[in-house]
């Protein structure tokens, strides 16, 4: 069994995971619906948001150039990272050259993608995650399992256990007490850190501003207290202007958590200026490619319009059953099934686009109306063309193509299957199928084919008089 299927089986055997995911996704889904209902013309807003994002992507290079110019005008230093390793290297260089020793981080999926923390620790820096969920993830030495709620897979009991074991506080599963304990730890870190690391939810091209949304206020502290702030941003996270940003802000939190807006929405436009008393002294942005420009202009380009809200995860019946870790990489759920093979290559990740029934619930909830099922189908086509597919499957589908395009052969094949099923079936049901088809009978019986096909019955049907109404419809001349 493959690693992916292994992880799936493990996840499906975990009743606590099922409970945690079921509760969370149901709550998030209904809150999302309610909050979108409260947004006038939400459909139109989503359409406009999609147009803004996809329009920008049509000239991403030009927009990035303009964005860079405006960042620099704001006193922000700009770095370009071709891949994750480069981004991490740049971060370490900045830290070392500025004599930074302790970093605090707000939640950034881009830095998860590059495995930044690992490289920072190797380079001898201390890093503390300040988003409460990511803090727990860091303590538990695991990875986030959702784009918005890193510990959606954990119960408050398991969180209490982690904190008790890792930071030696008395065990409690009371969420308020746990949050208070974390706050004390995090406050100490905020005040003593010399490097603040964030991602960016959006980059506003015409203002040269970074936008950070958070509910905990940690992003604000990370960007203002330490003397150096470095943001890592995927090159696709741009929006043209503040009025486009307005569209995004209207739908991001609603889609993610059902809030009309997150508690804090920060526009960061540069380091502390002459005469200002707050803010970092030095600010950098690392623009991360890591495969994004390869997707641009191709059939998967649309995925670069994703605003990372997580609504598709909450709507996905597959995600709801297996959770984020089963997907095996940074981004789980429907978008992860496209982003991971898109950025990292289809060969190693062909199972992800397959892990979907193409139900379309994701497309229905996506705030920018990404056609996720279409992209999954595209990736499956790429997998057949480029990745190694079990030969039995290839032969099977080739056989299907040949037989189902030749009616006589199709009928012959169906007749054979009918006879074979007759031998396998008991009282019209097959309980165990062989070979590749065995998966069906793991959890279902298969109704045996009918003794006569519909076409055979139709051919044998006595000729009926044309229906009376049809005669009335005939024109009279």
């Amino acid at each position, binding site marked *: 069994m493959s690693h992916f299927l292994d992880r*799936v089986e493990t996840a*499906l055997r975990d009743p606590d995971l099922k409970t945690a995911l079921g509760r969370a996704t149901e709550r998030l889904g209904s809150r999302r619906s309610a909050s979108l209902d409260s947004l006038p013309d939400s459909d139109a807003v989503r359409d406009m948001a999609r147009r803004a994002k996809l329009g920008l992507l049509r000239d991403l290079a030009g927009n990035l150039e303009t964005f860079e110019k405006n960042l620099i005008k704001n006193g922000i230093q700009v770095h370009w990272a071709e891949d994750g390793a480069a981004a991490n290297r740049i971060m370490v260089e900045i830290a070392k050259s500025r004599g930074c020793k302790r970093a605090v981080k707000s939640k950034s999926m881009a830095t998860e993608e590059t495995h930044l923390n690992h490289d920072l620790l190797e380079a001898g820096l201390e890093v503390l995650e300040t988003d409460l969920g990511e803090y727990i993830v860091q303590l538990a030495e695991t990875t986030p399992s959702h784009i918005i709620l890193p510990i959606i897979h954990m119960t408050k009991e398991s969180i209490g256990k982690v904190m008790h074991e890792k930071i030696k506080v008395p065990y409690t599963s009371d969420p308020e007490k746990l949050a208070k304990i974390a706050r004390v730890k995090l406050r100490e870190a905020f005040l003593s850190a010399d490097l603040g690391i964030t991602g960016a939810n959006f980059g506003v091209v015409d203002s040269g501003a970074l936008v950070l949304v958070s509910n905990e206020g940690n992003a604000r502290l990370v960007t203002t207290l330490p003397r150096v702030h470095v943001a890592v941003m995927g090159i696709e996270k741009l929006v043209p202007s503040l009025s486009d940003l307005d569209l995004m802000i209207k739908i991001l939190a609603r889609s993610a958590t059902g809030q009309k807006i997150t508690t804090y929405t920060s526009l960061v436009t540069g380091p502390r200026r002459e005469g200002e008393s707050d803010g970092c002294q030095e600010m950098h942005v690392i623009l991360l490619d890591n495969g994004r420009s390869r997707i641009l202009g191709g059939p998967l380009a649309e995925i670069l319009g994703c605003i990372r809200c997580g609504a598709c995860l909450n709507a996905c*019946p*597959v995600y709801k*059953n*297996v959770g984020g870790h089963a997907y095996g990489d940074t981004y789980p759920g429907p978008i992860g099934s496209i982003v991971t093979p898109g950025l990292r290559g289809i060969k190693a990740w062909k199972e992800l686009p*397959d*892990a*979907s*029934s193409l*139900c*379309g*619930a994701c*497309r*229905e909830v996506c705030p920018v109306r990404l056609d996720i099922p*279409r992209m999954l*189908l595209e990736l*499956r*086509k*790429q997998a*057949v063309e480029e990745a190694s597919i079990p030969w039995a*499957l290839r032969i099977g*589908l*080739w056989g*299907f*193509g*040949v037989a*189902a*395009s*030749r*009616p006589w052969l*199709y009928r012959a094949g169906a007749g054979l299957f*009918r006879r074979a099923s007759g031998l396998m079936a008991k009282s019209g*049901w097959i309980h165990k199928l062989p070979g*590749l*088809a*065995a*998966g*069906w009978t*793991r*959890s*279902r*019986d*298969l*109704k045996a084919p*009918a003794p*006569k*096909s*519909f076409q055979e*019955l*139709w*051919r044998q049907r006595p000729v*009926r008089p*044309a*229906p*009376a*109404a*049809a005669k009335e*419809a*005939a024109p009279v001349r």
Partner: protein
Amino acid sequence: MPKPSKVQLFHTCIINEVYPEVGLAVVNVLERLGIAVEVPLNQTCCGQPAFNGGFHADARKVARLTVDILSATEGPIIIPSGSCGDMLTHQYHMLFADEPDYLEKSHALSKRCHEFSMFLVDVLGIRDLGAHLRAPGPGVDSPKAAYHPSCHLLRGLGAKSQPQALLANVGGLACAEVKDQEECCGFGGMFSVKNAAISGAMLENKMRNLEASGAETVISCDMGCLLHLAGGLHRKGSKLAVKHLAQVLDEGMQGP
């Protein structure tokens, strides 16, 4: 469109091989409405299994035959399946993107294709076929039926209300409320085999919700879903029956 005097039936492979009685029910309903039904012989499959698996070249072989057979006919094409309907109406354009003549033919076909429930409600404008199921007896509640919206019908073709409208007008049938009614049943074609574990978990959720609804029958417009649900319910020893919408309407139109 004025009521057509004749339609073509694209019966689908699952109905042809496993549930021919559903095909007959579709024909019965349409004939009672005064519409003659023709069945283009030699139709095989819309090609969706290969297409969904990423085997576009193989899918195209099958789709070309389907396009040829259907293009040789005229008039509306009735498809008693949301997934096949979606394949013919939308996905053929993706399949034939690089074959201009088949692309053109598939565009022409899309305009003629109608899923069964959408044909009745949207094209014929009928919601009430005068169907009545036999009353169970005095003082006994009408049997409850749970409607399962197949994903391709609901989201692919956008049929949010047509099957429900038809069922609401079937006398002697009560509609059960189903938790997470619009959630995928887990069939997804080859997904049911390639990702059998996840498919099984989704099936389990769906069966639990259907049984908890108090329904005696599950009704859907997609035999793919029903093949999968029926198989799971049979394995479980459940008393829940599965029926295609056409079978319920046919039964009801035969009179109490």
